[in-house]
């Protein structure tokens, strides 16, 4: 990001915080409805200091990363199959769409029953939610490979593997990474939903605790801010990888 870009982003953030504060003051809202930003900030700092948030954050990060890796990996393979085989597409696509159309919210409790309140159920939910955007973007990307380049490859007697590594993957990369941007943010949603459906720790659990037994609304907001920040950081990481791999063309 350029210096001007960074300043602009900072300014936009400041405006959002001021607007938040204005809503609290003008609306005369009590802290259990909408706590002011400085109260949430202070609660966040306190929670970090006393170690309330960190174990939950760590649990969620592990779920998201494992789920994203698993989901994206399977999606790359299936997405390639969808692009290169009409049969695979015809056989699989109804199930893929059905899996995507079924609300993850409805599946999460089922997964919690099947796989228990541990890591597995959350990783599976994350993987499932990441799968669709990455698989579809892989399919679109692989199909976008210029037919002229494929003919060039054929004229140079490129093997299937060489076509894959030197033509199809580089050509599909911008699409794939676009799908991963969507996927990584969805993975955070998946982890939180999974934790809601049953877990011992995680930011989703903390939201539930803060809202319920603790009735600590500032803590709840502090947790929400943490979840949003996690999403932003992961998204930025994918963008960074994209800059590295795709660069200027």
């Amino acid at each position, binding site marked *: 990001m350029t210096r001007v870009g960074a300043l602009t982003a900072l300014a936009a953030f400041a405006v959002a915080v001021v607007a938040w504060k204005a809503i609290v003051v003008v609306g005369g809202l009590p802290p259990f409805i909408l706590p002011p930003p400085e109260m949430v900030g202070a609660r966040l700092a306190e929670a970090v200091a006393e170690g309330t948030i960190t174990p939950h954050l760590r649990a969620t990060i592990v779920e998201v990363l494992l789920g994203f890796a698993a989901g994206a990996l399977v999606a790359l393979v299936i997405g390639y199959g969808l692009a290169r085989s009409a049969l695979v597409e015809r056989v699989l696509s109804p199930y893929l769409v059905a899996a995507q159309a079924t609300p993850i919210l409805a599946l999460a409790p089922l997964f919690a029953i099947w796989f228990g309140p541990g890591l597995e159920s959350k990783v599976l939910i994350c993987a499932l939610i990441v799968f669709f955007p990455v698989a579809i973007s892989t399919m679109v990307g692989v199909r976008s490979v*210029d037919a002229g380049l494929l003919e060039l490859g*054929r004229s*140079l007697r*490129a093997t299937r593997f060489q076509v894959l590594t030197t033509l199809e993957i580089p050509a599909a990369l911008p699409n794939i990474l676009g799908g991963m941007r969507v996927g990584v943010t969805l993975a955070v949603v998946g982890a939180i939903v999974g934790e809601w459906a049953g877990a011992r720790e995680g930011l989703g659990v903390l939201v539930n605790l803060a809202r319920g037994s603790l009735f600590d609304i500032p803590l709840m907001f502090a947790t929400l801010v943490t979840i949003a920040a996690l999403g932003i950081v992961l998204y930025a990481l994918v963008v960074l990888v994209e800059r590295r791999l795709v660069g200027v063309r």
Partner: protein
Amino acid sequence: MIGVAGGGDSRGRVTVRDVALTFRRADGPLHALDGVSLDVAPGEVVALIGPNGSGKSTLLRVIAGLLAPDRGGVAVDDRPVTRPDPTVGLVFQEPRLLPWRSVAGNVRYPLELAGWSHARREARLEELLALVGLEGAAGVRPSQLSGGMRQRVALARALALQPRVLLLDEPFSALDALTRERLNVELLALWSRTATTGIVVTHSIPEAIFLADRVVVLSARPGRVLADLPVGLPRPRAMSTLDEAVVSPLARAVRAHLEPVAA
């Protein structure tokens, strides 16, 4: 002289025997070629000229081993062509460069696919860049190059594996007239240095005469050989040859064959 072609005079003979090819399409069969025969001697340059849809590009793809004919066959140095052969270089109408690779990366591409060692690859790369005058542009992306420069990269890439035969499918047709003329002159110089057999598809009668030892006129679909006219012009040829070619008796002869079918 740089060792570009890698072959002596006896290599690069192309024999096309009675080739016929029909594309089966949803809206009925398309007879592209019907009994085309052609002999190109080692080191000879032949121009293929004909109206749109006369199967010139199809014929080139059959020679390159990218398309299998329904009847007849093609041989390079008495070896039947059944699939693409690295000893046959191909330049397409569009440059077809890999946009994510630099100029050097594109020129190196055939060498990588063929499994050349790093040292050999880099040495060959330098020769090739020098050959087409791109020494200074090795690290540049294709998107930053002009059309003429891109087609030079494509030419260097086609020559990378030291082909005995170079096939060019209207290689400069997308370029402006001046760039096109300059590249034609360079191509001619390149041929004189490499002794590579050449078959070039073109729409331009002067270009055909300027580049080739023989001009072969194909008929409208289905493609057949209408005429096979020798070009008597001595080599080396200069830009002025191109101007003279426009009004030459040979140009008139080629046009006479083209006009009834192209009209």
